[in-house]
């Protein structure tokens, strides 16, 4: 934990903004979180960012929980709660009101166009997230091989990801990664 003056304010403002930019969900905003936490604010190293993402994946629950971890790293429990509330607040309010009128515009062409137009944007953003996480996590051939194996297992089977994590952790503990 490296608390700085104004850290809570930065967390609140940056994640509230990110909340409205995360087209495709929390996993679409990973590069932006990386840019904020590692490049701009210097809150953590690349390696710590990869660890943070891994810890979030080991926690049951929605992907947004990575934001809670970043907030905790920056400013303890207060930071965790502020970052989480900021990441969820604006979009929840927006969803609440859009949800009321959504049905009314079901057939509207502009609504269909917005929905169709945002799908490829979200795919590109999540792909960028995958790339940023892989670069932060994979520093040798074994790590890249684990990533490749996880892709294949996860794409072609319905095995619980916890098993993939268990095997990967075991290979890590043996000192190969």
């Amino acid at each position, binding site marked *: 934990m490296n608390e700085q003056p104004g850290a809570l304010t930065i967390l609140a403002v940056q994640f509230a903004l990110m909340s409205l930019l995360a087209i495709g969900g929390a996993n679409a905003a990973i590069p932006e979180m990386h840019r904020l936490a590692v490049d701009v604010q210097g809150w953590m190293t690349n390696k710590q960012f990869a660890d943070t993402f891994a810890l979030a994946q080991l926690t049951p629950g929605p992907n947004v929980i990575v934001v809670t971890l970043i907030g905790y790293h920056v400013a303890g429990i207060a930071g965790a709660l502020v970052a989480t509330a900021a990441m969820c607040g604006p979009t929840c309010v927006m969803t609440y009101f859009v949800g009321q009128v959504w049905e009314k515009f079901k057939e509207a062409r502009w609504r269909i*166009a917005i929905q169709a137009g945002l799908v490829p944007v979200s795919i590109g953003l999540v792909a960028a997230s995958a790339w940023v996480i892989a670069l932060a996590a994979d520093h040798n051939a074994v790590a890249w091989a684990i990533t490749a194996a996880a892709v294949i297992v996860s794409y072609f089977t319905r095995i619980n990801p916890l098993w993939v994590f268990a095997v990967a952790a075991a290979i890590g503990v043996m000192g190969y990664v």
Partner: protein
Amino acid sequence: MTETGTSAPHSPAPSINPPDLSQLFLAFAKISLSGFGGVLPWARRMMVEERRWMTAEEFNEAFSLSQFLPGPNIVNFSVVFGSRIAGPLGAALALLGLLGPPTVIVIVLAAIYARYGDLTLLQNALAGVAAAAAGLVIAVVAKMAAPVFRTPRSPAPFVAIAAFVAIGLLRWPLLYVLAVLAPVSVALAFWRLRA
């Protein structure tokens, strides 16, 4: 009535069997703790198959709304569903059920990491998990992208690639990239609908 995915052959009613407030909270807490790395499949299982609180069609409609709006998808879904059951209070309870338990768990994990994160054993284990986690996200992208890249004469693949290059390779700020790319992509989609 098309196939709804539930075993009930007739179910056009808006909501089949609405939950009360405590059921709502507990259901989202259970959904939240069921899955690792994203819990939307568990939401479908709970809402449509287990409790029959929504038809498959209602779920798909609420789900597409939750996906297309910015922000965490499942968080949006909890607000959409909770507000339909009991307005702002329902939305708040569903959201608290969804985020409360994992927030407590992750803070405990974070405290352990802050204390023991320097241990070589833990460092090595996490390095392995991080490499695997990257792979899981790549698999998610591959599943999302497959249908889009198969559509003939669609501008969508170019938009996806542009977003990837701008954010992943060039590391441009998300705000500026979206300010240009989102309107362009929506305009292309609109133009295609007219054609």
